[in-house]
């Protein structure tokens, strides 16, 4: 999940791997400061967010989070392993799935990176708004409005599908 959070923040696999590794490295170094196991997950996500923010600051000239495409199929990697189709899968269903994913990626690429991160933490990780506020160090109201804004933007950009 750290990797997926990093991926949605930075928008490309290569940087996401760097961020995830950096986050784990910092986590190991900071283990002594961790007192409660129950907050370990939140703590690791917060580290990931901070690693990404630091990279953005230090490489601001690149503006990579605005210019890099989220269409990772272009960078040569395989399709996700969990998306399988039987040989006899209906062609129209397969096309529909591809179109749906492509539309999502296109819409996501136009969102603010932090809004994408909010969606990952909520939709994929199932974190509560309070937990997301702690991870992202944003006020609760900001988390609520951010998730709402991101979802509404996706809904409008994907109006042909929803």
């Amino acid at each position: 999940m750290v990797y997926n959070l990093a991926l949605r923040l930075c928008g490309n696999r290569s940087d996401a791997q760097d961020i995830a590794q950096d986050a784990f490295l910092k986590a190991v170094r900071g283990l002594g400061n961790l007192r409660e196991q129950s907050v370990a997950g939140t703590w690791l996500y917060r580290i990931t967010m901070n690693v990404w923010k630091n990279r953005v600051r230090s490489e601001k000239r690149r503006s990579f989070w605005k210019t890099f495409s989220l269409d990772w199929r272009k960078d040569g990697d395989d399709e996700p392993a969990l998306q399988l189709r039987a040989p006899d899968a209906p062609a129209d269903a397969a096309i529909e799935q591809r179109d749906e994913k492509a539309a999502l990626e296109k819409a996501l690429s136009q969102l603010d990176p932090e809004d994408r991160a909010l969606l990952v933490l909520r939709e994929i990780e199932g974190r509560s708004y309070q937990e997301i506020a702690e991870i992202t160090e944003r006020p609760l109201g900001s988390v609520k409005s951010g998730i709402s804004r991101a979802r509404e933007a996706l809904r409008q950009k994907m109006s042909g599908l929803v």
Partner: protein
Amino acid sequence: MDHKTCRDNLSAFLDGELPPGERALVEAHLAGCPECAGVLAGLGKVSGIFKKHAMEPVPPSLKEGVFGSRGAEKAYNPWLKPVLALSAAAAGVLIFLNVPKSPQRAPLQMKNGYSPAELSMNAASAPRAEAVGSGSSFGMESADKAPAPRTAARTLGYFGQAKAAAIRGAISGSSISAMTSAKAAKSYSAQAAGGSSLDMFAAKAEKSGYSSTGAGMKGISPETDYVASNYTRDGQAVNRFANSPKLYRDKTAAGSGTLKPYLDALRAAGAAGGAAKIDITGAFESDKYGAFVFYSAQTGPGSNTSGFMIMAGKSIKFKDEQTWPGPYAKQLWDIFEHDGEAWLLVDVTRNGTHFFEHYRLSPGNTEFSGTSETQ
């Protein structure tokens, strides 16, 4: 509640993050505002699409670089080596912090047409979890058996808590591993198509006597058949559960009929691997979703493999198994339908802990999503 305020709150409503008072106001507005109801449905669909497509498998190079012992020799980045050289204790904590509670899955396999020999080959050749190392074929040595998989699930005591949490986790695709017993006592809701809410506890209390119309989430279960549905009463949209006819045939005990060839093949594969030590922990048939066979086997000293297959005709449509050091067993808990897809809830007992995994199946069982765990 006015129109704009309702719109601003729809996303939080969808997530169940509104206080009861505000939630009631939104529900009241929705009952009389088709436009807002439409937006809510759209947000629900967006949420579903995101869950379905946004998750990316972790690259093997990253996993090897961070966790793999072999990865220490070919770490993704050389500077990571000092991390891998940390003490075993620190490494253990790192794994606790990050890695999901399940072992790394073998690549999902889908085959058309299979024989016992193929089954045996697949079992022996499938990649295994990095966390448990080797020795996880069906050729096993120890005679110890994993505990019966049903035990933990059936002794949770209160159906509503476990079931509702599991379904909620499955639908939302979320991991609720941090759930405490205190939290479990709360009322959970599941988001159904269009963002409507299914209150599991109300459903338990009012589980019969309702006639329903309209589309909703239908659930079938070997133990607790129910249908969760939306309907309208006095002009208000209502979501309730009702009992349903049993749509699901448990063939575990019989081991015969249409499933017999598969069960025989599975047992034969176990015998060919060294001993007939594969436990068929469940065999089920559904007209719509095919046949499901769950199995567990001791695959090495202290190491257990458990998984399931979905079959259609004579083809294995889907096979997924994992290996874990210590007791490990899986059992089908439920299949239910939601938004045109089938959800498979799998009840997992591992090293004395109990949780659920879910699989989302597209119509025809031709595509499968990832899983999440619900404590």
